[in-house]
């Protein structure tokens, strides 16, 4: 069973791609709900099987999941799930920041700005941020005992953790001040007092063309009024990440390159001040114990022999590497299950099989 702090309200599952983060987030959700808590699991991109298991709909709304209760088992807990809709989440963020400050017309103007559209949807970069603002939104709503976030399937978690900082730059006083001159003026840049800035803008114009600058200035002019509330919102998101009530759970796989990456990630995360409390090594081939090696050897099936030995060497490697994770984290393993059985019952089993190493 996985240990979670008494005061913890937020769990963030991180890890490199393809290690089963989403399933793990859902398993922890099911397990904790069965202990009587009210849980929300926020996912990014669930597999079809998991979506079916949890009844997930990609609409960005909250849905209640039926818990797998054994005969006679009772719980007051609830499990809710939500697949984040990035476009909706970003729009919610903008509208929230604008509330009471900017008119609907102004907000719509921003939503139609080409750079905004690229920022929110077409191009990369905002998935990390929208996950975070959605997390923040539900944590502060106080509707749940726990909110569990499955982070974006990025190769590295850095970009997720840097999201608030990057977006904060967007509302940074420095940039907006470039464009804060009278919007009506046809000679926007002539008014800029600082000669250095003027030269920088000139260089930028040379690189990108005046149209880009125009779009950019329209974008910053549009957001300047509600820059402060948005900045505060971003700051609060960042505070949530470093809060004492937030725990990070690192999910990783068994092969050496994954373990090495997990090691790097766990060190980096700790030095940056995030509370990484648990490392889960997922899909450990527990079934190896049941294999009769004499029989396999006698079988003379070369390929099967190689594969079984390979899994065995992965396990040995794990034993060697386990000490490289800090003593400040609890290290767990979770068994490998057959791929065909992903339903809520399976998630419950999954949670139960999490075992401290």
């Amino acid at each position, binding site marked *: 069973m996985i240990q979670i702090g008494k005061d913890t309200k937020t769990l963030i599952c991180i890890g490199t791609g393809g290690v089963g983060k989403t399933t793990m987030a859902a398993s922890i959700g099911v397990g904790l709900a069965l202990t009587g808590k009210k849980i929300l699991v926020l996912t990014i991109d669930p597999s079809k099987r998991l979506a079916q298991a949890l009844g997930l709909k990609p609409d960005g709304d909250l849905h209640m999941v039926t818990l797998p209760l054994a005969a006679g088992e009772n719980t007051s807990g609830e499990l809710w799930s939500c697949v984040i809709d990035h476009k909706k989440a970003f729009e919610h963020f903008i509208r929230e920041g604008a509330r009471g400050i900017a008119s609907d017309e102004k907000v719509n103007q921003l939503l139609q700005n080409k750079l905004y559209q690229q920022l929110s949807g*077409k191009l990369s970069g905002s998935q990390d941020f929208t996950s975070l603002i959605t997390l923040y939104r539900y944590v502060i709503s106080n509707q749940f005992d726990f909110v569990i976030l499955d982070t974006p399937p990025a190769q*590295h978690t850095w970009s997720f953790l840097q999201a608030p900082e990057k977006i904060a730059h967007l509302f940074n006083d*420095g940039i907006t001040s470039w464009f804060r001159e009278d919007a009506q003026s046809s000679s926007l840049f002539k008014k800029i007092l600082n000669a250095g800035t003027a*030269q920088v803008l000139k260089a*930028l114009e*040379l690189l990108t063309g005046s149209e880009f600058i125009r779009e950019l200035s329209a974008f910053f002019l549009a957001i300047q009024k509600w820059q402060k509330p948005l900045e505060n919102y971003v700051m609060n998101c960042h505070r949530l990440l470093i809060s004492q009530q937030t725990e990070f759970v690192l999910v990783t796989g068994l092969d050496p390159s994954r373990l090495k990456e997990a090691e790097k990630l766990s060190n980096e995360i700790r030095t940056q001040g995030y509370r990484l409390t648990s490392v889960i090594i997922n899909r450990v081939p527990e079934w190896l114990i049941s294999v009769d090696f004499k029989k396999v050897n006698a079988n003379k099936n070369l390929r099967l022999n190689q594969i079984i030995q390979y899994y065995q060497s992965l396990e040995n490697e794990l034993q060697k590497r386990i000490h490289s994770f800090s003593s400040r984290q609890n290290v767990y393993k979770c068994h490998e299950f057959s*791929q065909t059985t992903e339903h809520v019952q399976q998630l419950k089993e999954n949670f139960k099989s999490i075992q401290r190493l």
Partner: protein
Amino acid sequence: MVKKAHFVTGKGGVGKSLVAALLARLYSLKTQQILLTELAEISFYKDYLNLNEISYTPTPWMPGVDVSQWSGEDCLKEYALHLLKVKKLYELFFENPVTRSLVDVAPGLSELAIMGKVTSSPRRHGPAMDYDQLVIDAFATGHFLALLGSPRAMAETIKFGPMGEQSRSIDKLIRDPQYTHIHIVTLAEELPITETLELCQSLKKDFAITPTIYLNKLLQLSAKDVSELSAKAQDILLSEIEAEENAKKILKKNKLHFIELPLVTSLSTPEILEALIAQLSHHSHSPEPL
């Protein structure tokens, strides 16, 4: 001059970096000079390929293959220096903290700069590149499409000026089947296969590109092979065998050509690469005709 650019993509965790390294090595065996480059923010190859150092400037890895790591910022700097020419103006531009954060947040600028670098050699724009082919260990599926689409998106937003013009010329090369080659790595699991199918559709629809698919880490066992194992072991292995058959069936049904890569039962990267090179060299269809 660079004649071909190979992008390697796929869902996270499927073995993109391994396949990119494998392709770089394979092409170099045909006496070509190859630059293998990774787009990750934190280098994966440094540890994986056991290199001392990895940076924007290429480092030798194997005979005929150099390795480097590109960030959007590096690419943009090089481009800016090339265009602005005046070093002082360039320094003023990049050393200004506000510019730095602007580069950070301006949507798509970083992706565009990377695509600019990938196509700089045939466009004769920027410093010369002494390689025949580029192999790019690119982003995972979603971000990869954003990368590939960034020049077109920018060209639509910015119609005039040097940026619009550049974006159009980059986009043209992306659509040139002689120049741009895309390799998708997948595992025989539901999510990566679904992503592969969707990516193939998008590539066909938006770029008219037909990618090469690699079905990675195959057990290549049959139900008979595992019939004497314990019930528990059979349960797991049979479900994997079934998943492998299913994946092949789905790819075939969608008329997608794919290359099978076995799970190499070794923990050492050089050994894994050697085994796969041997496998692919015997293959009647080499991954990409040179």
